[in-house]
């Protein structure tokens, strides 16, 4: 325990490039062979060769919302109020002036005070006709539905579902003996950075290229778990795995085809994660996901 405490202290000192002092501090407890080990090993790996963790990269691939959410009741009220105030403060547009003139002309024609110019103008298309035609065109325009077929069928492999919410990619992978629903993860290989490992994991999980955009080189979240005892006890094996998550946006809406590394995949909304992800894992994952009401 004391060793670990010192290691934590020295971590702060190393930030100020104080390597000789750390060596002196630790020399009280570590043997000569360990000291040599320390000096030969990389600059700030203060975790001495006692605890070995596997470094894993995971991908947090999301489809961002495509359409805006429906308005809340208060938002609707404020919108209508704002529109009324806007109307009061505005000046009349050319179209409105034209409507008024047409109305006056109609009145004059009814009363019988019309002159020749009025009769000429009356034969042209009036502003009211134009407005009616425009309104009709808008009502007839085939807008795409906000609730798609995928929503109705609850097809969890489709990207067309829940267009006003985030969709997170979750896969079923075999870890040890059991299959779990997790974010796609894989171990980092030699010569890779963590982000490159994440990109490789995504490429290997699916057939064909997944059009994605990774957001930066830094991980967005962290989760660690220990392996079962019988694996830990074996020589040369690590204690457990440290998973570093990397955020990415999926840029195309073409459906994915599952690769050989995974058993199954699904695109899930925030409220569906409870039933798929393990409890502790889900808590760590929701730490780096944007909240949705």
């Amino acid at each position, binding site marked *: 325990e004391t060793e670990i405490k010192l290691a934590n202290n020295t971590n702060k000192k190393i930030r100020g490039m104080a390597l000789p002092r750390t060596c002196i501090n630790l020399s009280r407890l570590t043997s000569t062979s360990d000291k040599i080990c320390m000096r030969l090993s990389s600059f700030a790996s203060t975790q001495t060769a006692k605890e070995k963790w596997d470094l894993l990269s995971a991908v947090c691939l999301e489809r961002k919302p*495509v359409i805006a959410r429906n308005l809340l009741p*208060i938002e609707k009220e404020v919108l209508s109020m704002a529109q009324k105030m806007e109307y009061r403060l505005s000046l*009349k547009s050319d179209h409105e002036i034209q409507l008024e003139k047409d109305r006056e002309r109609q009145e004059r024609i009814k009363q019988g005070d019309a002159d020749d110019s009025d009769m000429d103008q009356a034969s042209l298309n009036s502003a009211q006709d134009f407005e009616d035609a425009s309104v009709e065109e808008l009502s007839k325009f085939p807008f795409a539905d*906000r609730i798609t077929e995928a929503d109705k069928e609850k097809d969890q492999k489709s990207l067309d579902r829940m267009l*006003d919410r985030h969709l997170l990619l979750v896969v079923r992978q075999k870890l040890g003996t059991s299959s779990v629903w997790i974010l796609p993860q894989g171990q980092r290989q030699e010569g890779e950075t*963590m982000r490159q490992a994440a990109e490789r994991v995504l490429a290997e999980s699916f057939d064909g290229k997944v059009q994605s955009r990774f957001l930066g*080189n830094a*991980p967005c979240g962290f989760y660690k778990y220990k392996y079962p005892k019988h694996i830990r006890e074996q020589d040369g094996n690590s204690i457990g795995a440290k998973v570093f998550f990397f955020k990415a946006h999926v840029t195309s809406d073409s459906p994915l085809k599952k690769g050989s590394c995974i058993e199954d995949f699904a695109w899930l909304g925030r409220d569906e994660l409870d039933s798929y992800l393990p409890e502790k894992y889900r808590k760590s994952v929701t730490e780096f996901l944007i909240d949705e009401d």
Partner: protein
Amino acid sequence: MILVNIFSSRRTFIFTSFKENMIGIRRFIQPLLGFHTSAVQCAEPMKKKKKMDPSIIRHREQRKMKRIERSIRKLERVERPLKPLDETQIPLSLKYEIPIRQRQLQPISQDIELSQRELLVAWSHHKQKEAERDLACIRKLLDAQGKALKELKLESEELYIEATQLDLSLLPYKAVGPTRTPQIKGYDPPDGDYIDVSRKWE
């Protein structure tokens, strides 16, 4: 004594009893006294203007007018290029149309005004809570990232340095915001596609 006004054109002389003696001298001095030089002109005296034939003058004027009119018509025939939107100005005629365009509306009743004020208060509360939630979410995301980077640093300094490198491919970042309805699959616009050909000065 002689007082001579040498500047007047009509030379008036006042002289005394030496009148007869002065007459001879007078005849000699007069032109000398009246002699003056003008400033150096460096010019010729004006030439005499010859009178032009009025019909020729008229003909010349007509030709000039015709040439000017022809050039005006040519310029008018060419399509005037449209001004870029950034350079458009509010037409001055609107300034004089304001009285015509003002709306004559009944003033808002007290009840409606009160309800509007209450609604705005409720709205400000709602927006404040929304802002607080957004900030809390951002803080949570940053904390999660900070923890992850800390753990990575504990594991390996090299990987940490790689993780903290700037990703220049991210900038400039462009995102198309969410719309009211989703895209219509395979939509063929009846007016055709809009291709922006406006010139950019950068």
